[in-house]
């Protein structure tokens, strides 16, 4: 429950950066060191870290964040089509526009709390999704999804060079967004966003958000206008989602409405709770685990299962294949759903809670000594 000191925070930041930037190396033995997957880790990491600022700190469960992701994606693709293939303007516009949308939606939905808030966000997500498929087709290109075309204007790029043959690809001032360079761009952005989230968590603002989650009534009678606090958290997390959407489009310039469906918001909720709601690192852990296993499970098929069970007698292997095959390949979502249920039932605090429980069990023998002296207790807290 102690607030970490600044030294502590910097230490965590350094470790985090090192772990993220060396991912291509240490993911190698895990068989997950290819750029596409690494990019996904980083992008969903941003999404989950941002979602955690809302859900983790304030406890407001939103099912509408996929809509902001979608807004970010569409904005980025339009920036690629109209302005330039450089991702910088694209992600800036993504963040701004999704922030604007979040402000509008947040302003309305935050008038209610609890399940009413969840249902309101659900309704908005569904409206966005339906509109993207119908009236907004000129902007979203409906079911086909918004794609780049050779004859897009790209006015800024045209100032410097003629249109080349074939489709151009996205870059960050010459750094290609595909392959490992693309991962490093995403990773650096992830580190920056993680840093911001860490600052929020350990700021007076962050602790006030936690207080709102803990007892909103008390907050009101303590002299706080809670609405702007909630709205700020909502907009920040919406901007994170927009940033993630923009980066998704940057690494693969295609935006489709299916990204906006409310069930897609469910995935980020799962990542957040799997790792540990309201913890700094938890959502990143959740993203890592889910994306890693998604990668493995989706690639499996019955044949691969037969090979895996080859050491068993045939009859047993057949039974095992029959049991496990619905969970792999196309059935990955079944595994995901089952995991969701298990986590909420048995470990609502996520992996971080599990780690803490184990830690406690080991440290039980040496309880924290109680000190009556004010100075002794406060000294580590103030970080002097």
């Amino acid at each position, binding site marked *: 429950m102690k607030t970490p000191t600044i030294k502590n925070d910097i230490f965590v930041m350094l470790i985090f950066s090192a772990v993220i930037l060396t991912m291509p190396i240490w993911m190698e033995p895990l068989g997950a060191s290819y750029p596409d997957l690494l990019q996904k880790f980083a992008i969903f990491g941003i999404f989950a870290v941002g979602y955690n600022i809302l859900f983790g700190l304030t406890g407001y469960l939103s099912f509408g964040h996929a809509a902001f992701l979608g807004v970010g994606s569409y904005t980025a693709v339009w920036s690629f089509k109209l302005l330039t293939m450089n991702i910088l303007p694209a992600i800036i516009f993504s963040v701004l526009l999704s922030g604007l949308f979040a402000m509008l939606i947040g302003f309305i939905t935050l008038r209610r709390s*609890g*399940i009413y808030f969840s249902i309101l966000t659900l309704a908005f997500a569904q409206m966005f999704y339906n509109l993207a498929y119908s*009236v907004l087709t000129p902007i979203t290109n409906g079911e086909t999804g918004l794609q780049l075309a050779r004859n897009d204007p790209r006015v800024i790029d045209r100032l410097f060079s003629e249109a080349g043959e074939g489709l151009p690809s996205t870059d960050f001032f010459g750094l290609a967004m595909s392959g490992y360079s693309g991962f490093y761009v995403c990773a650096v952005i992830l580190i920056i966003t993680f840093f911001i989230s860490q600052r929020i968590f350990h700021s007076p603002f962050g602790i006030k958000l936690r207080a709102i989650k803990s007892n909103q009534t008390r907050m009101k009678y303590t002299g706080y206008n809670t609405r702007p606090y909630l709205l700020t958290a909502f907009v920040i997390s919406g901007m994170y989602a927009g940033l993630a959407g923009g980066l998704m489009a940057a690494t693969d310039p295609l935006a489709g409405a299916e990204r906006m469906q409310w069930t897609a918001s*469910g995935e980020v909720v799962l990542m957040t709770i799997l790792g540990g709601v309201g913890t700094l690192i938890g959502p990143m852990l959740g993203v890592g685990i889910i994306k890693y296993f998604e990668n493995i499970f989706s690639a499996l098929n019955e044949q691969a299962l037969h090979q895996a069970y080859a050491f068993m007698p045939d009859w047993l292997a057949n039974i095992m294949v029959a049991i496990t095959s619905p969970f792999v390949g196309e059935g990955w979502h079944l595994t995901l759903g089952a995991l969701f249920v298990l986590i909420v039932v048995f470990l609502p605090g996520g992996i971080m809670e599990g780690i803490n429980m184990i830690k406690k069990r080991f440290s039980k023998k040496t309880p924290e000594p109680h000190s009556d002296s004010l100075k002794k207790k406060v000294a580590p807290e103030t970080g002097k």
Partner: protein
Amino acid sequence: MDAIFLQLLNGLDKGGAYALIALGLTLVFGTLGVVNFAHGALFMLGAFCSVSFYKLLTISKQVKDESITFFDAFKEQPYLEIWFGDFGTAIIDFAVPLSILFAIPVMLLIGLIMERGLIRHFYKRTHAEQILVTFGLAIVLQELIKSFFGANPIPMPPPDIVSGSAPIGVLFGLSENVVYPWWRLIYLAFSGIVIAGVFAFLNMTTYGMVVRAGMMDRETVGLLGIDVERRFTVVFGLAAVVTGLAGVMYTPILPPDYHMGMDFLVLSFVVVVVGGMGSLGGAVAAGFLLGILQSFASMNEIKSIFPGIDQIIIYLVAVIILLVRPRGLLGREGVMED
């Protein structure tokens, strides 16, 4: 005039489905205090009860096709037809309505297992956790159905005799061109009967009275020495059956697929919210109201003024209701208001 009349009917049968689903949802919320995101999945399971029943009836054997003489051709013939002849054919023809008999015990069982196995442990947890766990359950159920029945919608024919349209324009003194599918009329009547049945059960039996008392004040009913938990299980089973039946009979209108539950889930929450959380009458009224609103919004005349309104009207109404009158149309004062 004809067009308006038709849209009204359209809205009513859609509203019937909304009302039935929302009735179950609000029953569970009102008595158990559980926000059940797996409720849509119950509707979907009901629809697949009908599909499985049809598959059961049409288990076939390869027989020689007598009509083709110049080589040995085989065709599939259901055992029912082999054993019972024309009577068997008739049973298969009536698969959808007959599957009600199959769906009632199956849905009841599913409901009981769900409540005993999972929901029960979440009475005291937060709404957010209830939402999360039932959402996970909904995904599991829909993916299971997908792995058994595939991803494509499965068309289910209504019985031959009611597959056509009813000349209802003549009945109401309108143009002869006003016709309406028989099956949709049947659905409307069916939903009316089920709704009436649920209300009769709750209002006229002592058992139902206790349930309603439980909706008002769970603690007191518990203090009176009534085994509330057992009744909760029964209520959940009842809600599962009602929702399942809504799904069974909806199959000829909308070919069932695995994600229909999620599609209807959001709608049914919207209906419950508009009607008032925990209000049974509100759920029914809002179901029909929203069904009618939606079908009027999809008229071309209206769409030309507000493009896309048909896609969002229901959600828009929900948003407005939640902001202006959070307790919903018929909700009791103070229920779930901040």
